[in-house]
């Protein structure tokens, strides 16, 4: 009798658990749809003709897949008065991002190495000042930087943008490397010094070989930041040196002619593709950079 009640209660409990589990999966699925929907809409819209966009609806699949919008977006869409598509701006972004990422990562590695392993009075203050620099709203440096770039003769140029990204990337790159190197025992450096190895030798043959994971994290972080930057791009570039985010915004908001939503979407996907690719290939390191930027220590 008691056994029967007990097993009935248990099977009821199992049923509730099963229902709850189904609900849980359903919920997770609905949220997956929420996150995926905009990407889905972007891709399908970019593959439709304008005619189909006007007659069909937002989430319908293209009846006739056409890559015309992609061709236009890449090579002939208008960003204001110029109509060369996003291609030249895509390459601008590459030309800005690659050197800026490399330089800021290298400097960050050296800074982090000094702050973590060659402690001297004031090193902590340096680090605290640097850390705060990560958090300033860039609006506060926009005006003087515009003047400074003018004085330096690199206003509106790609080297100018590289310079800006290196300067304001240093805080984070230093932070990443410092937090990584601080976990390496100081005895290692001491022992190497006793053996007569100098500053660079120790860096080159002890620290650098250990640094691959943090280099990957830093490079991905910096690349995402710089590729996705809009504020510096729109403030410090001129026609011809604009990065792709600025060009995309110009295409979407250009008021000449018919509104070509499919071209807008194709251009948006092109602008998002490099960072999306990095995320898919090296998601683990991407997330580590994001969390390292917020949870320090």
């Amino acid at each position: 009798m008691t056994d029967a009640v007990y097993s009935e209660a248990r099977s009821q409990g199992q049923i509730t658990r099963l229902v709850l589990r189904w609900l849980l999966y359903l919920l997770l699925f609905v949220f997956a749809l929420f996150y995926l929907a905009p990407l889905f809409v972007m891709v399908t819209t970019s593959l439709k003709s304008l005619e189909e966009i006007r007659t069909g609806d937002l989430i319908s699949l293209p009846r006739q897949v056409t890559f015309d919008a992609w061709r236009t977006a890449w090579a002939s869409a208008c960003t204001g008065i110029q109509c060369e598509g996003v291609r030249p701006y895509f390459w601008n972004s590459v030309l800005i991002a690659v050197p800026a990422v490399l330089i800021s990562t290298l400097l960050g590695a050296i800074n982090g190495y000094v702050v973590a392993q060659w402690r001297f009075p004031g090193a902590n203050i340096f680090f605290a000042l640097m850390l705060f620099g990560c958090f300033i709203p860039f609006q506060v440096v926009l005006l003087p930087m515009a003047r400074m770039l003018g004085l330096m003769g690199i206003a509106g140029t790609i080297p100018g943008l590289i310079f800006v990204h290196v300067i304001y990337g240093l805080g984070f790159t230093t932070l990443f490397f410092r937090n990584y190197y601080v976990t390496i025992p100081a005895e290692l450096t001491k022992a190497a010094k006793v053996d007569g190895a100098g500053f660079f030798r120790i860096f080159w043959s002890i620290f650098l070989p250990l640094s691959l994971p943090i280099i990957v994290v830093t490079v991905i972080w910096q690349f995402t930041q710089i590729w996705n930057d809009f504020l510096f791009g729109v403030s410090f570039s001129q026609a011809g040196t604009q990065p792709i985010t600025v060009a995309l915004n110009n295409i979407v908001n250009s008021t000449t002619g018919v509104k070509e939503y499919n071209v807008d979407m194709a251009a948006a996907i092109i602008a998002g593709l490099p960072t999306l690719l990095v995320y898919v290939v090296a998601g683990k390191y991407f997330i580590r950079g994001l969390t390292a930027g917020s949870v320090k220590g």
Partner: protein
Amino acid sequence: MKFLEDHLPKLMLAPSFIAMLIFVYGFIGWTAWVSLTRSRLLPRYEIEGFIQYERLFSSLRWDTAFTNLFLFGGLFIVISMILGLALAIFLDQNIRAEGAIRTIYLYPMALSMIVTGTAWKWILNPGLGLEAMVQGWGFEGFKFDWLVNPDMAIYTVVLAAIWQSSGFVMALFLAGLRSVDGEIIKAAQIDGIPNWRIYSAIIIPSMAPIFLSAFIVLAHLAIKSFDLVIALTGGGPGFSTDLPATYMFAMAFSRGDIGQAASSAMVMMGVVFTIVVPYLYSELRVKND
């Protein structure tokens, strides 16, 4: 030679140190100085007191922008945190394909806000987007015109921002959930404490530092939000979705009002300062102890 060797580490740090002093702190100083002058199209350097701030706070456009910051920021932070925590707890239940789901939830964070804004602008446009779609399904009376409605447009910015960042909050919380001591949870389970109590009484309270980090990151994102507004609404309709960041930019680069640009930037700086400095201070202190 010996001197050089002793001071090499400092010498290597010197370029970054000088750059930081000039380009971060010097520039903040310049902006602060100019915000106290009558600068318009060109900067002037005679200090005149707080006239720019008086102008700022009597400007209707700034009033909207500043209110929007707290409206947008508040909703964005609270909803992203709740959603992120809920998703993290859901994902913590031995879910099959957890990795794939996590990847899907987090990918928007890799996109530029301009891309996000462009996508949502298309989805939310009343003529051909969501509204037209639902109307096409037979619900003729369906209206969803937030994007072009001055009273509601700011909420589309909130929506797009949550879409972009909530997956990241989820990842933060998930990492936090996983770092809670498994022994304690096991002991509680053996004692027959229901799951929801384990979460609400043991796990979540122990994640206080993660709540703080998530708050700091989200608050920081909210204050910096510029690209998203530009791409999604352009600050409009009218000035209804202006934020301090877009106000500052408009003053600096299209209105030619450097004094207003500088003073609004300093107010943004002040907001960041009040949020971040106590946080950094406590972080650094803990580490030095």
